[in-house]
């Protein structure tokens, strides 16, 4: 893998709500910035914004995405620079409007402008497959799918992958979130292999269930900001894989099956 070119727009999406899109976006943003990448996170969940809260930047919002597309401010004015971490920026969503306040074309203009200045632009997609999802993928070069080891989540991810294929995005890559290896070993939870087998896409990372995430998310300090949490380590590994580094999958990943190894060898099933 040669690594993705600079100025890349990546949408983080899932279909189902509550699987950890926003947490994943926040932590991958932190991890990419830690790698020295100029990173901009875009909250595309207009009307239900969360990303600013998870990042602890809520009290610094002056302008938002809708203000930018409506011409009330320049893009640069709406960007919030994270003071804890050089290179991390946020373009917040509006809280008062809804998804129809922005069109896919406007979204594309915003992401194209951000591309000039940043190495990575991560779009936090809203749940669902409607207007908000269409906006979120409009300007994206690639997609990262977040799924938890639950049948409903995997089914929705499958639907989303189909829609991304129809939109002619390159094959999406999968983050399995909130895995509990103990439950998998007992046969009480789908394994990473099961999920990869069903979805037939390449894995980019596995994030174990981690109570630390709940604490850090509520505090507005993404786990990846500090060392020493399992989830934070997993996000840092994913960030490096996004950059094209070949980071081995750790034991926690619970993936040794024949099928997924085949898929990795051939790139895509």
């Amino acid at each position, binding site marked *: 893998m040669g690594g993705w070119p600079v100025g890349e727009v990546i949408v983080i999406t899932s279909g189902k709500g509550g699987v950890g899109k926003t947490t994943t976006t926040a932590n991958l943003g932190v991890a990419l910035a830690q790698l020295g990448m100029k990173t901009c996170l875009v909250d595309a969940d207009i009307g239900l914004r969360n990303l600013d809260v998870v990042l602890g930047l809520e009290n610094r919002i002056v302008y938002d995405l809708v203000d930018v597309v409506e011409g009330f401010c320049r893009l640069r004015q709406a960007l919030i620079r994270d003071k804890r971490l050089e290179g991390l920026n946020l373009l917040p969503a509006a809280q008062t409007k809804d998804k129809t306040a922005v069109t896919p074309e406007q979204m594309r203009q915003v992401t194209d402008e951000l591309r000039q200045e940043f190495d990575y632009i991560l779009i936090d997609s809203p749940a669902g497959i409607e207007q908000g999802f269409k906006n979120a993928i409009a300007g994206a070069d690639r997609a990262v799918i977040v799924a938890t080891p639950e049948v409903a989540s995997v*089914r*929705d991810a*499958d*639907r989303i*992958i*189909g*829609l991304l*294929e129809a939109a002619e995005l390159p094959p999406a890559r999968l983050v399995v979130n909130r895995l509990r290896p103990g439950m998998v070993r007992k046969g009480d939870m789908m394994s990473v292999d099961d999920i990869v087998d*069903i979805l*037939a896409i390449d894995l980019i990372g596995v994030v174990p269930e981690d109570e630390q995430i709940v604490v850090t998310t509520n505090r507005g300090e993404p786990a990846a900001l500090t060392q020493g949490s399992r989830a934070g380590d997993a996000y840092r590994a994913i960030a490096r894989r996004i950059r094209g580094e070949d980071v081995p999958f750790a034991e926690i990943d619970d993936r040794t099956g*024949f*099928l997924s190894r*085949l898929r990795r060898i051939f790139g895509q099933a």
Partner: protein
Amino acid sequence: MERGRSRTDGALYVRRTLRAGQRIAHDGDVIVLGDVHAGAEIRAAGDVLVFGHLRGVVHAGALGSEQAMVCAWRLEPVQLRIGHVIARPPDAREEAPGVPEIARLEDGQVVIERALGPEDGRMARG
């Protein structure tokens, strides 16, 4: 004849995997070169052949043909319909045997049988 009619309408080749929410309807036979995921749906006036893993919903003989059949490398549909008959896999059946199978109607009942001997079939699954 019902069967002959569906044949003359030609087969639709689907050269990709059908994912959840995707639906194919065709006034003839449907041949899928790929998997049919759970949540996907195929509706064909004639036969349905899946060169892959069938986990979605399939309706063969959708215009009422009792002669239609469904064949898949791995036949594990959520629900199977042939003609006017609707069948779902028995709860006891945990996993398909890993060999190609054919489903057809016999005396108004859906029956499933192996399309190949077990030795041939072993190659179908890694």
